[in-house]
């Protein structure tokens, strides 16, 4: 056990209480009673605060359910499979969640497709290849970038990334896959500023630091002896990573990826500007679309009645979706922690 880094405080008021307690028996009883009361009230204060955390989750679910109830009653299960989104339709609007759900899943999947290999690549670079002098600065830069607010990413995507991708990168893909059966439809033109593709790229850049930070931490947790043994047998760096580091940390990496996926699914500001807010489902990733969160962000303030209720129902769906993803991520990471602790 290393010596403790903590400085022991010695409260002056405590000493006073101690001396008073010795000198006066009546005060001693009173002081003890005060201690007991203070103890009990502090215990209940912290316990109630802990319960409030539970209540927040309960409150979120309950308030969303109440808000979504009119929409559930009006549309029922059809809400999930309807493609049309016509809030202005008289007498009753037709609202279906298929478009936003499709957009959410497609953008998140595309974002993960880009961010996971790159993020893990950076983590391998940081933990195995990087010269020690660079490790800290690069690591800190990545962590600081995880802290940048998402609206900054959204703005940058809107002004910088989307124009560049649309003018230079999208046409490349469109020409490349023109006429190829399935891929031709996925990469069908024309290029568009407001598109699922551009939104996914911004999302990918945004979740990159999360994946890198968690993967690097779990890679660093591999006992050096395991790696050194593998190197001693003559393994190359890649073989050590492939056969020792990744198998050892698999649950941790997957947990980190799921956490990033949870972020990507619920991210609002990074995608709202450039996704186009179109409820149409077109097969092409260069077409505009919308996600659940973008739909809520852009329509909620002006919505009323069953339209607003439908948006709350979308929010509830999003919450359930991210809850499942995040809960499984946490369970995986917790399992890894237990393994490391044992």
């Amino acid at each position, binding site marked *: 056990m290393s010596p403790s880094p903590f400085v022991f405080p010695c409260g002056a008021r405590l000493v006073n209480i101690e001396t008073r307690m010795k000198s006066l028996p009546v005060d001693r009883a009173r002081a003890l009673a005060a201690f007991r009361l203070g103890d009990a009230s*502090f215990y209940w204060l912290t316990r109630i605060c802990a*319960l409030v*955390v539970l209540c927040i989750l309960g409150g979120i679910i309950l308030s969303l359910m109440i808000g979504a109830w009119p929409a559930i009653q009006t549309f029922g299960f059809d809400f999930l499979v309807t493609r049309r989104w016509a809030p202005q339709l008289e007498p009753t609007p037709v609202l279906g969640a298929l478009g936003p759900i499709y957009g959410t899943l497609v953008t998140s999947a595309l974002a993960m497709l880009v961010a996971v290999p790159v993020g893990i690549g950076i983590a391998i*670079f940081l933990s195995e290849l990087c010269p020690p002098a660079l490790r800290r600065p690069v690591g800190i830069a990545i962590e600081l970038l995880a802290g940048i607010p998402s609206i900054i990413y959204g703005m940058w995507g809107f002004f910088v990334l989307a124009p560049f991708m649309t003018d230079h990168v999208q046409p490349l893909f469109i020409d490349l896959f023109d006429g190829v059966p399935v891929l031709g439809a996925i990469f069908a033109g024309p290029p568009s500023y407001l598109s699922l593709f551009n939104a996914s790229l911004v999302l990918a850049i945004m979740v990159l630091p999360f994946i890198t930070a968690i993967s690097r931490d779990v890679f660093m947790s591999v006992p050096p002896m395991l790696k050194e043994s593998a190197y001693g047998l003559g393994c190359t760096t890649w073989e050590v990573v492939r056969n020792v580091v990744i198998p050892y940390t698999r649950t941790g990496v997957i947990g980190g990826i799921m956490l990033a996926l949870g972020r990507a699914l619920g991210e609002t500001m990074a995608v709202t500007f450039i996704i186009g807010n179109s409820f149409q489902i077109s097969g092409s990733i260069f077409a505009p679309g919308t996600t659940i969160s973008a739909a809520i962000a852009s329509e909620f303030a002006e919505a009323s009645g069953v339209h607003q209720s439908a948006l709350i129902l979308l929010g509830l769906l999003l919450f359930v979706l991210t809850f499942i993803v995040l809960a499984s991520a946490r369970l995986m990471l917790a399992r890894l922690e237990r393994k490391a602790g044992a």
Partner: protein
Amino acid sequence: MMSLYATRRRRDVIIRVLCVAAAGFGLMWLTLILFTLLWNGLAGLHLSVFTQMTPPPGSKTGGLANAIVGSLVMTVIGVGIGAPLGLFAGTYLAEYGRHEKLSFYVRFINDILLSAPSIVIGLFIYSAVVVPMGGFSALAGSLALAVIVTPVVVRTTEDMLRLVPDQVREAAAALGLPRSLVIRRIAYRAARTGLITGILLATARVAGETAPLLFTALSNQFWSLSLSQPMANLPVTINNFVQSPYEYWRQLAWTGALLITLAVLALNIVARLLGAERKTK
């Protein structure tokens, strides 16, 4: 034999190059973002940004004074509500309820809340506060931020209190100190820098939050410090200005974005320095 060795070597080199390329690729985007932000933001950074109100459409003058102050007010209130709540809840998890079933659930739920989509939290506060109160208000915005602050503080408080060695608590208890004083006077002080770091990080997290403010605090073109009225704030102002056709509005949006980012980075760096200081002590 030689060829197998050569293949392994070649594959290793390819993967190494790919990893370095990935690092370069990632860092390139990230520096590009910061560079664009500085370039565009600094161009509009004048004193008037801090002294004048947000301009009406088409105007060529104006600043972000009301938005900056509004953001500060709501962040302070949000942290002021969320941080104590998180601190005490984290204390319960680390001190009283270490082995209780309740702590397991609270910890799990807290981890979910930590990464819950912030727009859903906005919807929650809309239904729970805005609708009953009858209108958008700065108070609702602050509460939304508090809901985001709380789980961050719970998490760091629990982690930091757990770093305090149990012998310290036992020594204090052996001197006859009641449990609550052991926590408040011994554990809190031993973990003080860590606790402050957690609160700073939580502040940084909410300083740029936009989604939960969109339909809780809304925004306000005018100066207002009333908590029951919509209040101007930087993130929503940026959100409104980015997609506008007015050149001056877009410029202000960049400047506002730069201010937020600098504030967030500064908070992160201070938190990091505090953390490093604790380690070396």
